[in-house]
C-alpha cells in the first residue's frame, strides 16, 4: 500500500466520527467569513457602480483565522488524546512514524489553513467570478504564513499528550494573542512612539495580525515578514516530521 493511501486509510478510522462535525464547522466558518467579505464588495458596488470592486477580505480572514484556529486546536487535542492511548494500536501496524506525522499535519495544519484562506473568497466567486480578481493577494499570503506557523506550534503542544495543555496554548495563541499584541503595541506606542527593537520581532512572526492592527505603521516590508514567518513555519513543520520519525515513542 502506498504512503498516501495508508495516510488516507488511517485518517478515515482515526477521524471518522469527527468528520461530520469538522465539515459543519468549516461550512459555518466559511459562510460567516464569506458574508463579511461579500458585504464589503457589495458596499463598493453600490458606492461606485460600474467600477470593479476590490473587496477587502482582511476582516473575513480574521474571523476565518479565529474559526479555523479553533478547528486546528481541536484536531491537535485529538492527537494529544490519541498519543496517550490509541497510537499504540495504530503504530503497531505497518505505518511509518513520518506518515503518522504527515497525517496530523494534514489534519491540524494544512486542511484548516486552506479552508481558512479559501473560505472568504468562495462566496465572492459564487456571486461574480470577476470579484476574485479584485482581491489583494498580499494579506492572504501573510495570513497563510502566520497561521501555518501558529497551527504547527499548536500541533507541537500535542506531543505533551495532554488535551488541557493543547487547549490552553491554542486559546492563547488564536484568541488572546492578537489582543495581547495589540495592547502591547499600543502601550509601547504611547510611551516610546514606536515599539522597541526586540518587540519588532512580533511583526515578523505575526505579520497578518500586526498588519491588520497597525496597517502601514508596522514599518516592515511584507516580503521580509513573509520570508521570516514562512521559513519559521517550514522549520517548525519539518521539525515535527523529524521529531516523529526519530523521537516519537509510544508506551
Amino acid at each position, binding site marked *: *500500500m502506498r504512503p498516501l*493511501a*495508508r495516510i488516507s*486509510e*488511517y485518517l*478515515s*478510522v*482515526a477521524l*471518522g*466520527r469527527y468528520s461530520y462535525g469538522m465539515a459543519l464547522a468549516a461550512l459555518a466558518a466559511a459562510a460567516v467569513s464569506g458574508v463579511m467579505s461579500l458585504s464589503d464588495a457589495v458596499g463598493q458596488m453600490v458606492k461606485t457602480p460600474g467600477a470593479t470592486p476590490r473587496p477587502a477580505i482582511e476582516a473575513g480572514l480574521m474571523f476565518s483565522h479565529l474559526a479555523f484556529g479553533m478547528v486546528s486546536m481541536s484536531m491537535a487535542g485529538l492527537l494529544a488524546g490519541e498519543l496517550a*492511548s*490509541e497510537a*499504540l*494500536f495504530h*503504530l*503497531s*501496524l*505497518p*505505518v*511509518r*512514524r513520518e506518515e503518522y506525522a504527515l497525517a496530523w499535519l494534514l489534519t491540524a495544519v494544512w486542511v484548516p489553513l486552506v479552508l481558512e484562506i479559501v473560505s472568504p473568497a468562495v462566496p465572492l466567486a459564487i456571486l461574480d467570478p470577476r470579484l476574485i480578481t479584485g482581491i489583494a493577494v498580499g494579506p492572504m499570503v501573510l495570513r497563510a504564513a502566520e497561521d501555518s506557523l501558529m497551527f504547527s506550534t499548536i500541533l507541537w503542544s500535542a506531543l505533551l499528550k495532554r488535551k488541557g495543555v493543547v487547549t490552553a496554548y491554542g486559546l492563547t495563541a488564536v484568541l488572546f494573542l492578537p489582543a495581547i499584541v495589540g495592547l502591547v503595541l499600543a502601550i509601547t506606542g504611547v510611551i516610546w512612539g514606536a515599539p522597541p527593537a526586540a518587540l519588532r520581532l512580533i511583526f515578523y512572526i505575526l505579520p497578518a495580525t500586526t498588519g491588520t492592527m497597525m496597517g502601514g505603521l508596522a514599518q516592515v516590508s511584507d516580503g521580509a515578514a513573509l520570508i521570516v514567518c514562512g521559513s519559521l513555519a517550514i522549520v517548525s513543520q519539518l521539525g515535527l516530521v523529524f521529531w516523529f520519525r526519530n*523521537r516519537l*515513542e*509510544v*508506551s
Partner: protein
Amino acid sequence: MDAIEVEGLKKRFGIVEALREVSFRVEHGSATGLLGPNGAGKTTTMKILVGLLKPTGGRATVLGMDPWREGHKVRQRVGVLHEKPSYPKGVSVRRLLEYAVRIRGLDHTEVSRVTRLVGLAEVSSRRVGALSRGYLQRLGLALAIIGEPEVLLLDEPTANLDPAARIEILNLIDTLKRELGVTMLISSHIIPELEPLCDSAIFIAEGRVLDYGTLEELARRHGTEAYILLEAERPRELASKLISLDFVRSVEVDGSLIRVRVLPGSLEEAEIEISRAKGSYRLRVLSSGRAGLLDLYGRVVGGETPGENLRVPVGGAG
C-alpha cells in the same frame, strides 16, 4: 539467524532503568515464554521489538531487521497483542479489521479468515467500544494474526480476564501455534498458563535476563529433571540395574518405592527401559513427569513464585 536476537539491550525512562542488560535469542518456529515478575521489563522488551520504543543502548533485531529504524517493515511481518490495548471505540469490529487488512496491503477476504479463526463472527458488526474484555482480547489476537505474520508477540494475553475467558484465549493461542506454526514470544507473570504452550523460556527480573533456552536446556542447567516413581519387588536389585543406565542421574529407594531421576529429554527412553523389566520385578509405574516451568522459575528467578495456584488446562475446554 534466529527470529529474534537481542544483545545488551538497555532502556531508560528518565531516572528509571527499565532494561539494564537484556540478551536473548528466539529460534524460528519456537514458542518462547518471556517470564518474570511485574516490572521486570517484559512489556518494555516487547515494545522495543515492535519498534514502539527506542532502545537507550544495545541491539535488537527481529527477522534480521532493526525494529526502530525499519519499524514498518518489521510490523509488516510481525503481529503484536499488547497488554493494555486501546482501539478506536466508535468503529465496528469489521471496519477495524478491514482497516488493519488494508494497511497491510491485503485482500478483504483476510477479514473473514481471521474473524472465523478467533471466533469474532457473531460480534463483527458490533462497535469496538461495546465489546467485553474477552472479545476485545480476541479482537487483539485477530489484529495480530492478520496476514499470517512470521512472528507473534503476545504481551500478557490473559491479563485481566476472568477464568473462562482466560481458558478460551489460551486455547486460541494453542490453536494458532499448532495451525500457523509461527514463532511466538509470549510474556506473562502467570507461569503455569504458559507451561503447555512454550518450548523455550526467557527469565527476566529487574531489567536483566537471568537465563534463557529450551526447557530441557534450562532444566539441565538448573538441576531440575524428569522423574519416574515406581513400586517393585526386589527394589534394591532393580535400583542397581537402573543406576548403570547413562540417562539416569539418581535412584532413591524407600521400601518398595523407587524414585528414578533421569536427564531432561530422556523420560520416554527411561520409560521404555523400565517397561522391559516389568515382568522380572513385577513393577508398577506410579507417576512420571518433567520439571515444569514453575520449578524452573523458582530456581532461576527465586522468591515468590507467581501464579502457583493458577493451573489452567489448555486443550480441554472449548
